[in-house]
């Protein structure tokens, strides 16, 4: 048996610095751990994307089909039947619909993210914030793809792309921040109350029609308008419409306002998530 010899040989080989006897070798630094968990995030995202499109030859196409179909339906309903006087309506619609879909998708998948990973939450120690975060990143990949489609559409309909496009990254970033905060909050509560996801789907429907996406704010009767203007998602969506449809810089007030809301939401969401996550392993 070579067993008595092997451990010595291996331990010497592993620590060439001659430090083999030091009982507390330097732990991998914080930076290293952070990088490792960055890779874990990438792993989760890749896994989610692969699972989503696994076995479908058309792959990414499916993620585009839905907004395209919705666009077609809304276009027919609101420019042929109801005749909202916004032209070209498809560009206006998609300018709001694309980010909204990404928002709804992020919240839906973030909300169940902890519950769906119950088996690892119960048995492995890792930064639990990665779970809602990976839902956000996964959805943002799909958002970027849809934005490319939107750009194509803007060119086809002759609206073109103006210099105001430089504000786009800022808006996307703020949107992700806001979705992460709200998503983390909902995910944490979902662990304790399993019907949060159903409340969310109702909320999202109401919220969608309460946000000027299929219509523009000036179509809303003046006396109801303050109610619509108090909706932070309206500030964000109108900024997207400014960029894509009106080809102008988004207003300072809505962007600044949404910035404050997004930062506050992220801070609150993360704080609540961290607090509640201490008992995830027991409750999930």
């Amino acid at each position, binding site marked *: 048996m070579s067993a008595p010899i092997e*451990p010595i040989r291996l331990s010497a080989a592993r620590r060439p610095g001659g430090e083999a006897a030091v009982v507390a070798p330097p732990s991998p630094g914080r930076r290293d751990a952070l990088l490792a968990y960055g890779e874990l995030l990438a792993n989760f995202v890749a896994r989610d994307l692969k699972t989503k499109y696994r076995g479908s030859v058309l792959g990414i196409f499916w993620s585009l089909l839905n907004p395209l179909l919705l666009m077609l339906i809304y276009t027919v309903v609101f420019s042929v039947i109801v005749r909202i006087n916004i032209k070209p309506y498809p560009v206006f619609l998609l300018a709001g619909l694309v980010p909204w879909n990404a928002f709804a998708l992020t919240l839906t998948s973030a909300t169940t993210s902890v519950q769906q990973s119950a088996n690892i939450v119960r048995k492995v120690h890792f930064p639990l914030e990665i779970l809602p975060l990976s839902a956000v990143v996964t959805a943002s990949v799909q958002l970027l793809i849809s934005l490319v489609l939107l750009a194509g559409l803007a060119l086809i309909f002759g609206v073109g792309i103006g210099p105001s496009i430089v504000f786009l990254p800022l808006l996307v970033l703020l949107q992700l921040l806001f979705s992460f905060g709200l998503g983390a909050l909902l995910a944490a509560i979902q662990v304790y109350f399993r019907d949060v996801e159903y409340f969310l789907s109702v909320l999202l429907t109401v919220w969608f029609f309460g946000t000027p996406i299929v219509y523009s704010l000036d179509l809303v009767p003046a006396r109801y308008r303050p109610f619509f203007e108090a909706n932070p998602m309206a500030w964000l969506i109108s900024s997207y419409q400014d960029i894509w449809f009106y080809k102008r810089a988004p207003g300072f007030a809505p962007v600044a306002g949404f910035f404050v809301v997004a930062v506050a939401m992220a801070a609150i969401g993360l704080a609540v998530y961290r607090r509640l996550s201490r008992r995830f392993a027991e409750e999930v």
Partner: protein
Amino acid sequence: MPAAISFERVSKRFRVYKQRHDSLKEAFIRRRRGIYDEFWILRDLSFEVEPGRALGIIGANGSGKSTALKLIAKILHPNGGRIAVNGRVSALLELGTGFHPDYTGRENIFLNGALLGLRRDFIRRRLDQIIEFAGIGPFIDNPVKTYSSGMAMRLGFAIAVNVESEILLIDEVLAVGDAAFAQKCFDRVSQFRAEGKTIVLVSHDLDAVRKFCDRAILIDQGGVQAAGHPEEVTAHYLADVRRRQEHPDEAGPATARWGTRDAEIVRTEMLGTNGRPRYIFDTGDPVQIVISYRCTRPVKDAVFGVAVTRADGVYCYAANTGARGIRIGQLAESGSVVFSAPHLNLAEGNYQLSVAITDTDFRTTYDHWDRRIEFTVRQAGAYAGGVVFMNDQWNVDGALAPPAAS
């Protein structure tokens, strides 16, 4: 030098839900999130492990051993006290946790490694070593869903032990796979020791504790009941088990219990041949389980059930009056139900008996007492392996081969 692990008056509380309102709607209506008992699985637990030492934690099921391990691994957080852990921890809690079924074994090594906080290039350097250790051959490039559970565990073990960590936590997973692989695992853990790493081993296998550990602690009723040399502590534990066998009414293993208690279990006993309570049986012995009950409300059509689980969690056997087509009708105010079997055909090992009273369609649990009794089965002279004993006979070259007289 600071301790590798130090627990200072650590307490942990769990909730056992009798009724869980896990919907917002219900919580809103009832203004609370369910009815639950809180119990302290650990109470003021203190111990230290010096760097490079191996600590064994023993104790009955539900004594809080595994909870202590999960606290070290930071999966659970204490409700009181202080825990300090110095060094990177690698936990062998449940092997293969987080494997993605559609990924190949190789891809899962990276996914699992990332979960353990390892960088990709680190894993790449270790990849051959891990694959070699797992020893599952060309299967490494097949999706994990095609693996047997043994293969998945081997791969999980291979990843976990190849993490560069200073502290290794092991929970009952030393013996995975066949004898050869189990030997490999033992060797690997010995090697960890030789490398001066800190080990915490939670096990029912007292031999393993004696073999690997410098020190052992016995946890019972949430605290350390004995600490010291593994020989002494394991002897103390065995004496405890023996005492309990003689005085079965002393608190058994800390167990989970739930139900409405409309009908409740007052007492559970396992009886041997002579009608006396026993906790150690030989394979093939007759056995009786006596469940004494009491009703706090009229109960109709109750079902009595028993289940046997092996100490490592393998679900071995379950039976209930409903499945036997027995209609009980109106239950008496108090009484007893007896399960008898002519032969206890379990293989050698440590087992736990759970007992329950439910209604006919199992919707309402009146009283479920999980792992109420621990018992041991010995298989003198005829030990083969597995969970069941089949009372086998062998015919060699046409002649019935009689077993050696025992």
